[in-house]
């Protein structure tokens, strides 16, 4: 079994069957995490390069563990130890890495579209591990896996995504993936954080959290980037917390069984209060566990899995 594509750059052009295949494969990988020996030989002899131009301990570690559990050789290459500081261009770096003949490159980059440029230039597969404010497909897939775990389905659910939609790659990937799977998606945030014509992506726009979460099955909170937004898009973080933060009081507007997701790391007291973050409905830590399974599935499906399993 494999995905009929070279790269996973985003969920914009992904098909329902592909999403199902990824989620089902991830399901079957989940149990490895609880085994005593957490390793299968599926990707033995394959090389996966984690090319991270932005620091991201979570995503990088998640891909690294995923690769190692499948017995791939995982090489981490982060911008700080590379020659980027010496003025080497992305293309130069890429050509060097490609000369090492990896089977897959997992790339995180601050510039939207950088993985697309790489995918055009290299023969091997490329997974987008987050590009600027564009997409973060593996995060959205793990969110979808989480939703499916808790709710048993995605089709027919209503999901509210709350926060800085403009700058959120997580939001874009989730909008594509969730709507493709038949969910209704609402986005909510201050007007300064809602990008132009987003309703054309098939979402409903709200500026009032209470209204946005009323009746929804899933609430997905986004991380407010403290360094960037204060000042530029908001009068103050305090103002944001008061009007858009998820508090025990606000959350009463949602269904009693509404699931709460957050891609992490959370800013306690800003977009989400501690009480809500740590409550039973919060799946924030379970998301991390699912992240490894989804990434195992992606590595497995994009490399074609083990040699003897690729006959089809």
């Amino acid at each position, binding site marked *: 079994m494999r995905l009929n594509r070279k790269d996973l750059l985003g969920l*914009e052009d992904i098909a329902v069957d592909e999403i199902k295949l990824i989620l089902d494969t991830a399901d079957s990988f989940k149990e490895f995490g609880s085994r005593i020996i957490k390793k299968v030989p599926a990707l033995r002899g394959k090389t996966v390069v984690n090319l991270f131009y932005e620091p991201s301990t979570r995503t990088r570690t998640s891909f690294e563990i995923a690769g190692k559990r499948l017995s791939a050789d995982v090489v981490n290459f982060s911008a700080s130890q590379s020659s980027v500081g010496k003025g080497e*261009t*992305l*293309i130069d770096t890429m050509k060097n890495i490609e000369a090492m003949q990896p089977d897959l490159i997992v790339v995180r*980059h601050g*510039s*939207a*579209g*950088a993985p*697309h*440029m790489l995918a055009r230039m290299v023969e091997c597969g490329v997974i987008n591990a987050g*590009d*600027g*404010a*564009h*997409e973060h497909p593996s995060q959205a897939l793990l969110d979808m896996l989480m939703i499916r775990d808790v709710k048993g389905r995605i089709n027919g659910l209503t999901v509210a995504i709350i926060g800085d939609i*403009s*700058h959120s*790659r997580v939001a*874009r990937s989730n909008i594509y993936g969730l709507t493709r799977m038949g969910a209704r998606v609402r986005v909510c945030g201050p007007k300064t954080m809602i*990008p*132009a*014509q*987003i309703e*054309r*992506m098939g979402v409903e726009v709200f500026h009032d959290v209470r209204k946005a979460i009323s009746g929804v099955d899933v609430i997905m909170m986004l991380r407010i980037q403290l360094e960037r937004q204060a000042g530029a898009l908001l009068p103050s973080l305090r103002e944001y917390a008061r009007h858009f933060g998820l508090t025990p009081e606000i959350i009463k507007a949602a269904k009693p069984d509404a699931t709460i997701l957050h891609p992490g790391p959370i800013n306690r007291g800003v977009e989400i209060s501690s009480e809500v973050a740590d409550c039973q409905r919060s799946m924030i830590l379970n998301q991390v566990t699912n992240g490894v399974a989804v990434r195992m599935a992606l590595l497995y499906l994009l490399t074609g899995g083990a040699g003897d399993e690729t006959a089809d």
Partner: protein
Amino acid sequence: MKLLIKGGRVIDPAQGIDKPLDVLIEKGRIASLIQPASRVRPAMDKVKTIDATGCIVAPGLIDMHVHFREPGFEHKETIESGCAAAAAGGFTSVCCMANTNPVNDNQAITLMIIAQAQKANGVRVYPIAAATVGQNGEAATEIGELKTAGAVALSDDGNEIRNSQVARLVLEYASMFDMPVILHCEDMYLSQGGQVNEGFVSTELGLPGIPNAAEESMVARNLILAEMTGAPIHIAHVSTAGSVDLIRWAKARDVRVTAEATPHHLTLTEKAVRGYNTQCKMSPPLRSEQDRIAVLTGLADGTIDAVATDHAPHDDRLKIVEFDKAANGVIGLETALGLMLRLVRQGQLDLPTLIQRMSTAPARIMGLPGGSLAVDQPADVVVFDPEQEWTVDAMCLRSRSHNTPFDGWSLPGVIKATIVNGRIVHSG
């Protein structure tokens, strides 16, 4: 020597001519336009003949907005390579913007550009000097002296003149010297960090957008300053429907304003950027289809006076990079006529209007010779076959840079001859 351009269809909007005529050139000037049936023929032994059968014979194209990167960025373009590209595209005159390094804000640079142009192929090069020192928007340049040195207009193109008081001063002062002021209209606060047009495409791509208002608010301010001062202004690279409306409004009030649009804004929309194509990254950004149509309508009805390429060469180092790190700009001299002829084919524009917008009008706006085939005018002529197609190969263009979104496009309009001052500077 005499030159006879024989058998072509002569289009000279300045004289309202559109018919089969032979053009006789003598001593660098248009000597006569001869009826094809006429018995009066120059003695053939002393005449070089260009067979223009099936071709358009028109006043040489004039590009009032190019960036030749000399001095400072000669690896991208030199005046010589830029002139070769111009001639290959049918242009007999170009006006080059001041954002060189150092900036053309003093007579030494202006004189140097003119001197370099004299060593090139003969295409006429007219320097546009900076409107403010260092293009910093703070203090006006020595406009009188720049004019004396040979600058034909003033512009901080690439930057707006942010301070309205400075803009007013430049307009008032320049008008004493009959120097048009070319204005790059962009509110840099509104466009700050922007990579593409603000709209659905910017949302999809996750790239910061540049709203139409960034251009239109500055167009509005500049029109109001032009009305107040009575000084002539020229709006560079108009890209939005709102700007066209504002210019139409100002013209109805007899404000002395002219405007230009580029072939790429008339041809492409923001959708071309999908896939993060850095060759489509430009300032102002490619806009929506509605904007494109509005600009094209403005060009057809005369609200937009001229076509200018904004020829902006950049090397691969600045284009084959992450989208947000890529430089703005696209080369245009060799594809301009073809792209405009496509619009003629689509019925958006007729040929005489096209020639008017690409030759007659820019000559008038900038006060340059050319733009007409009237007898005794300098013999600046372009001969092209409007039907014959050619395929753009970015690597084969004469420009030293290859940054074009039109690589691989098939375009109509093969240049048979570009003639400056009676001398053939390009033949195809």
